[in-house]
Structures are given as C-alpha cells and as structure tokens.
C-alpha cells in the first residue's frame, strides 16, 4: 500500500522482533519521505535497541532512539542508488564474521548479492533505489539479507518486453524471472544504465538455493514464492499487493 497511502506515523510499540526484511520495508518507507514520518519504537527494550543498532531511526522523526553502537554481525539499513562497487563483499564479510564460510563461497554469495542489487537498481524504476539490510544468525549457522525496491512488480518489468507481454499473474512472472535467460529488457535494447542483460541474476540465485545453499523468497505483486532444496517452489498470496520487489535470502554456512 506504500504507493497509495501517505503514511505519517509508524507505531511499533507492541513489536518484539523484526526480521531484516521488515527492517528493510520500514527503512524504505522512511527513505521515500526522509525525516517526515514519525517512528514510535517498540516498548520492548531489546527490540528498540536492535532497531537503533540497525540505524532505522535515521530515516524518521524519532524522539527516543537509544544510543547504541552497531554490531559487527549486522548490516545496517543501507540505501543504494548507484553501482554497488564492493558493497556486496563488505556485506558478506560482516555477516560471515561468526560463520565459517570458505573464501570462494563468500565470493559466490557476494556475486549473487551484486546481481540482485543491480537488478533492483536497473530494472525496478524505484524512487528510492534499493534498501539492503542484513543480519547474521550464528547459532543457526546462517545469514539473512533483504534487498528491497519500491518501483514496479516483476510482472510489470517483464511485460515491458514484448516476448513476455502476455504474462497475466505475479506467480507466473516470478517463476519466469527465475528461469535462465529471461529478462524484461526487450530484444535489441539495453537497460536503464545502458547495459546489456542476459537474464541470469535470479536464475543463478534460485539455482544456488535449490542446490542446498539457502532459502530464497521473492515478494512482488500479489504473491511471494519460496525456493529451497527441500521442495518445489511454494506460492503464498498476499492480502495487499506489493508494488515493488523484495528479495530475501538466507544463506547457509557451508
């Protein structure tokens, strides 16, 4: 509903826990109107400290944000609008501090992140660029990273390509976008940065997760789909359509 309702106040009084994707969603709402939305932090002190540690209050009017230092195992809410450079390497380095990733796995994860971030920046027509939030869960031997944009749905992007103009629902669009070689950039054209696309970013990430490397969730339009090694993709309906795309990925320590 972010594109239909002007939000003036977000009240988290009763919250006791927010996952990285929820922090990314809140940060994105704040980034749409920086400093204009009032944020009421949770009464639960640990949760309030966690949100302060993730630097969520920076996007909001927030009177009683506790002053706490960021943790070495978290990636605070970061807004990206330009090419990420080595940002993905920094993210994986931070999140893997208390895990035991091999060097090449870490580099592979950074590569997946790069591709998703660049997708969000070049395909999504997002007014905020994209928001990235990450958190390590050392006791579960995994890390979680959320990449969020508030632009268009995956279906909207794919339909810009005449080859995919007949896609009628969001589930089919997400499944198609995770196939090899599928891109919303029309044949003979380049993306908004003037670059070529081959349509591999989400395909490679899905393949990595379905090979046992993690759990991928893609939220866009009226559905979200989950991909992992345990089963065929699972589709869930959203009660409110989401105009944008959230890619949430849990990478396993391996």
């Amino acid at each position, binding site marked *: 509903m972010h594109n239909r309702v002007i939000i003036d106040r977000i009240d988290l009084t009763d919250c006791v826990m927010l996952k990285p994707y929820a922090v990314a969603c809140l940060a994105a709402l704040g980034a749409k109107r920086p400093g204009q939305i009032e944020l009421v932090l949770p009464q639960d002190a640990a949760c309030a400290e966690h949100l302060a540690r993730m630097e969520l209050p920076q996007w909001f009017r927030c009177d009683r944000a506790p002053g706490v230092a960021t943790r070495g195992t978290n990636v605070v809410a970061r807004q990206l609008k330009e*090419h*990420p*450079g*080595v940002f*993905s*390497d920094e993210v994986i380095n931070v999140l893997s501090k208390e895990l035991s990733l091999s060097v*090449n796995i870490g*580099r*592979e994860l*950074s*590569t997946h992140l*790069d*591709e998703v971030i*660049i997708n969000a920046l070049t395909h999504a027509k997002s007014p905020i660029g994209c928001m990235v939030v990450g958190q390590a869960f050392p006791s579960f031997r995994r890390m979680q990273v959320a990449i969020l944009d508030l632009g268009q749905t995956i279906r909207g992007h794919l339909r810009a390509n005449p080859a995919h103009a007949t896609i009628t629902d969001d589930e089919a669009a997400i499944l198609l976008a995770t196939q*090899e*070689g599928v*891109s919303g*950039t*029309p*044949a*003979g*054209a*380049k*993306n908004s*940065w*003037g*670059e*070529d*696309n*081959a*349509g*591999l*970013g989400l395909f*490679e990430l899905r393949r990595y997760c379905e090979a046992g490397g993690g759990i991928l969730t893609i939220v866009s339009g009226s559905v979200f789909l989950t991909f992992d090694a345990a089963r065929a993709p699972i589709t869930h309906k959203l009660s409110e359509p989401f105009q944008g795309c959230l890619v949430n990925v849990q990478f396993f320590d391996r």
Partner: protein
Amino acid sequence: MLACVLHQSGVLNSASRGAELAHAVLEQVALNGTVEIDASEVIRVTPSFANAFVMTVLDRMPDALACGKVRLVASDFVRAAFVASEDRFARGIRLSSQRH
C-alpha cells in the same frame, strides 16, 4: 610478436566494464592477432560482467576463445565464471542487444 596484455584486478561486477574489455580485446586481436587478459589479481567475476565480455567477443569473433586468440590468466574460480558464459553462449543465450 608478444601478445598485448590487458590487466584486470579486484571485483569485476559491471556489465559496462565487461563490454569495454570486450571491445579492447577485439581491437587488440584485430591489431596483433592475439591478446592476453591477466586476471590473476581478480577476486571474483559476476555473470553480468562475464556475459557482457564473453558474449560480445564471441558474437563478433566466434573462434576467439577456442582458437587461443584470447588467452586468459586467472584462478580456477575466476576462470569458471568465463567458462560458464561460454557455455551459455553455446546454448543460445544472448545479451539483450544481441536478441532479435
């Protein structure tokens, strides 16, 4: 004649840079017949970079990699990213601007 050497380093994750490297390689092959890419200091390569490079080169010069006109010096990890792009090209996957 010694082959021209094009040095690359760090993280290669930009399709624009992949295309730039491809054009530089094609230019050097046209001038000298061969070219070497020294990617021994490259940390990692994204599919976007590798595709932009490999598919641009192969589209213009299909035998460039197989015939050794372009020689790549890189770790196995980095080389695998380029080999994967060659495989995609062989299976018919193309860059958006190469599609009709």
